[in-house]
């Protein structure tokens, strides 16, 4: 079984990789300058021309691109190819504002599929595998990306898309799918449903799962790996950069390798924009150096994480990113404190609860309130209300220890929190601040 999908690139020595990045960056800057008036204007405002960018070392001279830039130019923001050369769009869910539309030429799709194929091979996939893609198909990039990658690897692809859980499980069993791709919250739900149907992990031939598109914790990985009897691999991406496959986990499961031949990663101080040294936590910024239709230079992801160039035991040379602590879009500011839903999830899982929860933020009498609804688990159930109140207080104390703010925890009946077939709805923010 091959360990790499594109060995020469995935194990390319760093100096050579950096030279390749420089060469591609120079070409890319010229491309956007020539073909995107919005880019040219941004560069002119910063007093930069393509002549100033001679390689990766000059990257910091370029202006940042933010989500606001993409919204401003809607629906053709940052487009750098005529529509006659574009073959597809994908779009963000638009939950945090106006949708962002990403354009792809056939070449863009080809390279994106390569990135996803690398992820599948890194998770142990080959043409002998049956790969069930349970990410949503459509405007969302999850289904299309992994579908394309699975084709490239030569897996038998089962495009179930999301939803219809019992049919998903039927295909998993009948077609002996060995790899599943979906959101981690849906994987949890699938695991729960299998358990309810009386299926044990050895009755499901799955060996690996590729899970992404939302923040998840190590504890959740452990839960999925045990209930489904698989190895759970993380995959990272953004619609703005193509979709899943910007970075992926290898068998070491110790951070995700960024596909650096296509994307240059930087970590910056989110307040000052200053580039931070390797290993420092900050906001992740990407420059796509091979995309034609929708090339984003220095795109601020709002994801908070760290990068490392420590050698990886898998032999890949590409830089690894830690699992983001959370997208700053997911970050809530409650009573002035930054709160990531993933932190609350960690507390719940550490205390023996499952990742079935909902965070409700509201503002009463000019004060933020934080309520966390968590489903009761059989092991903790007591029929004495006092005891349940005690459990709620224990969780409140643990959340307070983690976040420094008080939450009201409510234990609720199993299945009373709506399950989602795509990204889980973890947060309901009822505050009307604008």
């Amino acid at each position, binding site marked *: 079984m091959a360990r790499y999908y594109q060995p020469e690139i995935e194990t390319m020595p760093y100096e050579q990789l950096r030279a390749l990045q420089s060469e591609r960056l120079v070409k890319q800057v010229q491309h956007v300058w020539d073909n995107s008036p919005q880019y040219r204007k941004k560069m002119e405002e910063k007093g930069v021309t393509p002549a100033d960018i001679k390689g990766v070392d000059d990257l910091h001279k370029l202006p940042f691109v933010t989500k606001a830039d993409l919204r401003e130019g809607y629906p053709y923001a940052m487009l750098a190819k005529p529509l006659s050369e574009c073959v597809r769009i994908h779009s963000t869910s638009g939950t945090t504002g106006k949708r962002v539309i990403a354009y792809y030429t056939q070449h863009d799709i080809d390279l994106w599929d390569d990135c996803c194929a690398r992820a599948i091979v890194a998770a142990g996939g080959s043409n002998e595998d049956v790969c069930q893609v349970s990410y949503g198909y459509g405007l969302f990039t999850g289904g299309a990306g992994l579908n394309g990658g699975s084709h490239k690897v030569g897996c038998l692809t089962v495009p179930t898309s999301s939803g219809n859980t019992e049919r998903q499980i039927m295909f998993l069993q009948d077609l002996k799918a060995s790899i599943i791709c979906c959101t981690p919250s849906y994987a949890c739900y699938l695991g729960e449903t299998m358990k309810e149907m009386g299926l044990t992990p050895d009755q499901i031939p799955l060996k690996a799962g590729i899970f992404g598109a939302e923040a998840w914790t190590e504890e959740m990985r452990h839960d999925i790996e045990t209930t489904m009897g698989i190895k759970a691999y993380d995959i990272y991406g953004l619609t703005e950069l193509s979709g899943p496959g910007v970075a992926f986990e290898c068998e070491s499961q110790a951070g995700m390798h960024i596909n650096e031949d296509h994307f240059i990663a930087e970590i910056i101080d989110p307040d000052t924009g200053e580039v931070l040294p390797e290993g420092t936590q900050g906001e992740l910024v990407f420059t796509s150096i091979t995309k034609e239709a929708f090339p984003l230079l220095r795109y601020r992801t709002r994801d908070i994480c760290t990068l490392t160039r420590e050698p990886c035991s898998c032999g890949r040379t590409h830089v690894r990113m830690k699992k983001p602590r959370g997208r700053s879009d997911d970050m809530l500011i409650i009573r002035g404190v930054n709160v990531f839903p993933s932190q609350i999830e960690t507390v719940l899982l550490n205390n023996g609860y499952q990742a079935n929860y909902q965070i409700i933020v509201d503002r009463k009498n000019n004060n933020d309130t934080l309520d966390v609804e968590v489903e009761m688990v059989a092991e903790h159930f007591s029929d004495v209300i006092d005891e349940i109140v005690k459990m709620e207080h224990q969780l409140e104390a643990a959340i307070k220890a983690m976040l420094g703010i008080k939450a009201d925890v409510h234990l609720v*009946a199993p*299945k009373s929190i709506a399950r989602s077939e795509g990204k889980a709805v973890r947060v309901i923010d009822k505050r009307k601040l604008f």
Partner: protein
Amino acid sequence: MTVNQLSVFLENKPGQLAELTNIFSAHGISMRALSMADTRDYGIARIMVDNPFDALLLLKDKGWIAKLTPVLAVSMEDKAGALDQILNVLAKADVDLEYVYAFLTHKPGTACLVVRAADMDAADKALKAAGIATIPQDQLYKI
């Protein structure tokens, strides 16, 4: 001697209790007594059923959160002052009660008091010492 009471965690929403009784009805499970405790977020049903083990397995299979809780089924006369006498015995022994509920039995003039105490042993001993009888599991459906 304690008996097994079925305790079930319920969502606080219309139709939840009916969903539970539908299951009992479909499987011919007979209830002797039912007591509900509820909060804004959830309800707890405490139920005396004829076959608590089967009822528990049935509910667990269907994904409900339920368990068997040991309680004392205290034999009581159906007359003024009978409950007072029992509670006084427990109070004098400093027994902390978590919940109680009562039901009439088929034997005329008798009732049963269900007692859940923080310290079940202490409650059992205090009642025994006062000569108050508790009903064993196998007798519960015969009275």
